[in-house]
């Protein structure tokens, strides 16, 4: 399953709820304001997700927010094409609004 989160972990509990319910081995894509959780300073919000999930971040959203170069190791950046591929290669997905 692909989980998609688009809210900052400082603003809503979307990411926390997602991580509570995501099964090990599933995929997590961070988009929009959720990209702050992919930064060195913000990745505490990911808990141990980097060990249990495959974590991706939408690079155009990272660049828009001036966060390029601040990403924590272990997260795979994808572009819009990569976003589409992730959706296509997983049997289902959930957007945590």
């Amino acid at each position: 399953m692909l989980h998609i989160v688009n809210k900052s972990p400082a603003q809503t509990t979307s990411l926390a709820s997602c991580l509570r319910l995501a099964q090990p081995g599933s995929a997590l894509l961070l988009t929009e304001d959720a990209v702050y959780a992919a930064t060195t300073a913000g990745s505490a919000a990911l808990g141990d997700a980097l060990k249990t999930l495959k974590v991706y971040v939408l690079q155009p959203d990272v660049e828009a927010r001036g966060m390029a170069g601040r990403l924590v190791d272990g997260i795979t950046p994808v572009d819009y094409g990569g976003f589409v591929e992730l959706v296509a290669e997983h049997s289902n997905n959930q957007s945590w609004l």
Partner: protein
Amino acid sequence: MKKFMFVNRKAPYGTIYALESLEVVLITATFDQDVSLVFLDDGVYELVKGQDTAGIGIKNHSKTYRALDGYDVEKLYVERESMEARGLSEDDLLVDVEVLSSAEMAALMAEQDVVLSF
């Protein structure tokens, strides 16, 4: 003249709040009021250098903060706790700001006539 404070607590682009705040700030400044901008929590991200929105098709409004002093809006305050929690320092910000502790920020807030929250 009244003291207006604009409290910015949202990251840019994910919601419309950051842009709307900027627009109301410019309107308020036109009426010759004492305007302060405060950046707390994710609002600090609004001021980060190097924003490049070419990939998301949204106007990069971060440059507008640099134009504020042209409207005599020169009081920009950042809460130290929010900034440091996000791994940021004053060097990472695209405008000159005054960094305040939470206690100093609270005192500044308490002396305002009008506080608008975004």
